[in-house]
């Protein structure tokens, strides 16, 4: 068997693949956090809980209504997105004039409510969710075995990430968004409905988290605590990348996923802490993050 640095090649590539998959979820979630923070000035602590909710809605749709994976991929993010819009309209929008910390505290409370509710009904053990027929099986690439579903996860999340990036950077709507990030009042003075834009931004970013959740459902088991640890890792990723750029958060997300995969191969004990160590080092060398701009 072929070896790379004393590690069997299939093992190394297998871990790299897992790293890439985790990285895709990190990218989708940190992208959403970056967009929300840019437009609403809120760090959404509930992002992990909403990701979990996306997976759970897909599971519930399948078990109670018989709605399968493909419709769920669209319907679950839509449902969670509407839920997000309700949160933004009824609660978050009251906090925009206050210290940013209140937004964090409010969404922390929401995360507790959402996760606690699901734990009460479904317990902390996971529910299995089978991938659709067409995506089962895999391909032998010669140097490793590639399960089809995992390849699909990476491709799908990359498409969504790049799509979002193009939407923000290359369209008129995106230009309004970026303008609102710079100066909300001025954009409003031009007759653009900024509050509506903020509501839709939150709904969209939350739907992205739910989309990641549905993608994740067949990979991991669907459990009420699946987003708890993830959100903290994503926070660290956001600190590493800096909240300045969308492309930055996508690249950092994927990069950290790969680094975690490598750590799991060569030094497994550190695989769950390596992201936090990287965060500390980045903070010492580049306090504003790899892609961040100095802020006020």
């Amino acid at each position, binding site marked *: 068997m072929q070896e790379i640095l004393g590690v069997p090649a299939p093992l190394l590539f297998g871990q790299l693949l897992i790293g890439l998959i985790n990285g895709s979820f990190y990218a989708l979630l940190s992208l959403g956090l970056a967009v929300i923070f840019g437009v609403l000035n809120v*760090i959404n602590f509930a992002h992990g809980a909403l990701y979990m909710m996306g997976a759970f809605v897909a599971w519930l749709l399948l078990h109670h209504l018989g709605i399968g994976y493909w419709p769920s991929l669209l319907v679950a993010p839509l449902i969670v997105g509407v839920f997000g819009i309700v949160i933004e309209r009824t609660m978050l929008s009251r906090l925009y004039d206050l210290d940013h910390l*209140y937004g964090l505290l409010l969404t*922390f*409370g*929401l995360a507790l*409510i959402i996760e*606690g509710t699901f734990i009460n009904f479904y317990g902390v053990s996971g529910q299995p969710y089978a991938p659709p027929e067409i995506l089962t099986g895999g391909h032998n690439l010669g140097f490793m075995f590639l399960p089809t579903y995992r390849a699909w996860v990476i491709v799908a999340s990359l498409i969504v990430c790049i799509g979002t990036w193009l939407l923000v950077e290359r369209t008129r709507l995106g230009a309004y968004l970026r303008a609102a990030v710079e100066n909300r009042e001025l954009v409003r003075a031009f007759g653009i409905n900024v509050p509506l834009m903020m509501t839709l931004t939150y709904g969209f970013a939350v739907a992205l988290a739910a989309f990641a959740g549905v993608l994740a459902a067949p990979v991991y088991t669907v459990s009420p605590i699946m987003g708890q640890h993830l959100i903290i*890792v994503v926070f660290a990723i956001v*600190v590493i990348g800096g909240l300045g750029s969308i492309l930055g958060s996508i690249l950092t997300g994927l990069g950290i996923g790969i680094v975690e995969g490598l750590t799991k191969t060569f030094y497994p004990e550190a695989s769950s802490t390596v992201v936090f160590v990287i965060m*500390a080092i980045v903070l010492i060398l580049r306090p504003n993050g790899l892609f961040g701009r100095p802020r006020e």
Partner: protein
Amino acid sequence: MTDTTSNVELSDDTFRRHRLAGYLIAAIGIAALAVAPFLGIYPIFLMKLLCFALFACAFNLMLGYVGLLSFGHAAFFGMAAYVAGHAVKVWGIGTVFGIAAGTLTAGIMGLVFGAIAIRQKGIYFAMITLALAQMVFFFCLQAPFTHGEDGIQGIPRGTVFGLIDLRDTLTMYYFVAVIFAAGFFVLHRTVHSPFGQALKGIRENEPRMISLGYPVALLKVLAFTMSAAITGLAGATKAIVFQSATLTDVNWHMSGEVVLMTLIGGMGTILGPVAGAGIVIALQNYLSTIGSWVTVVMGAIFVICVLTFRRGIVGEILARTRR
């Protein structure tokens, strides 16, 4: 000119009155601590309350007086509990030195974490402290001396220098009460010292403090170290009281709980965190029958506090009486 003088006299007078009120509150507080176990409240409950009240007060030093929200204080609380538990149970160095070891460990961690985290402000500071604390959680999950999921159990309460036996619950209560009073007094003195005033200055206007020549970064790290050390004191004491140290103490839910206590009681007030800790602990006690719905209730209180009650109980009372 006369106006200024009378103003000074007036503030001098209010100062004296405040001081008198302060002594009065201190005397009532000490008396309350002394008689509380005879009022039909379980001493174990009281000890838990005092540990968490001290925890919340130490946390409030950062949030209320420096204006930095740490979402990782459970790391100091839990780690100090582990160190104290291990030192007392395995090394057998005695209760007092065990608690001191826990406090010292938390202080050193605070120094390191503080030095890293103060490189960013506001919301980033919260995320960084949360991430660093999660790192400590994984360390505690994997390190052999913490015994992973089981935690350290059966920590002996021991004696105070071989003189006072702490196995008696009432004696233990007074030991905890003394620790609480000492920690509270240190925090109180800190807040009202020139150092504390400089911290408030940083909270109100950081660029101005920098231009006035204050070593702002150093002051922040010192405050964080102190907050962490006293948090450690609370955590180590809790480990002795309950004779166990577990992963619950280092989990991020614990960091959230202390934020909630401070928020309910009123951040930036001396007595707010104590009141907040009392409410949260009492609530958990009464709601323990509904199991995991407690998390939902806590979340709901968080949301309600942030939306409608941002000054907290003590903050609200102060705001009304001062008007």
